[in-house]
């Protein structure tokens, strides 16, 4: 079980801020994205952008990073604070 969070424009496009993914672990961020894309066509489009950033347990990671059961994985667009 992986806790998945979405933020900002991505959260609005998916109409979802939190989702529990039930996929085989360990996996990678890339594979998790493919799993999430199967949810529906809207998710397929919104989660295939190359600009999507990812954090595992609140630390920014690349899409090749490993995800294990119990992780908190967040996806979000490029940040615009400051």
């Amino acid at each position, binding site marked *: 079980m992986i806790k998945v969070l979405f*933020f900002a*424009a991505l959260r609005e496009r998916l109409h979802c801020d939190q989702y529990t993914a039930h996929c085989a672990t360990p996996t990678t961020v890339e594979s998790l994205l493919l799993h999430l894309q199967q949810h529906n066509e809207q998710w397929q489009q919104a989660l295939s952008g190359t600009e999507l950033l990812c954090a595992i347990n609140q*630390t920014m990671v690349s899409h090749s990073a490993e995800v294990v059961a119990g992780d908190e994985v*967040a996806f979000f*667009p490029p*940040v*615009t*604070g400051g």
Partner: protein
Amino acid sequence: MTVFVAVQTDDFCQASEYDELRRNAGCGAIVTFCGLVRDLQSTTLSGMTLEHYPGMTEKALKDIAYKAKSRWELGAVHIIHRVGYLKPNAQIVFVGVASAHRAAAFSACEFIMDYLKNQAPFWKKEHTTEAEYWVASKDSDKVALARWEH
């Protein structure tokens, strides 16, 4: 080094932060930066909403402060970032750096803002009288960050 990080809806007082930074022993220079809400694309901006990733934002800001400390001799770093709805001209972000020397304080303050702009999980949504839209990230922010990566 003293590191103070806050993510809050409330406004902050630059003078109080400056007084806190001044308490730092051996501090010979303080550089502060304040970012305000400005109208980026139209004259009809009514305000903006700052969204963030609770927990990760505080962690990211602390990481950035310690990253600056590993490059310069710093006495204290204060970073405050507001979230929620903000009106034009409102204060968004404060960065204050105390150091023995001004060169370190100037550089560290810029370094912290460049990293914050690229790595801290905040997102701006602008509200105009006609519409609302998410602010796009800027390539110039990436270029500003790249100069520190050597």
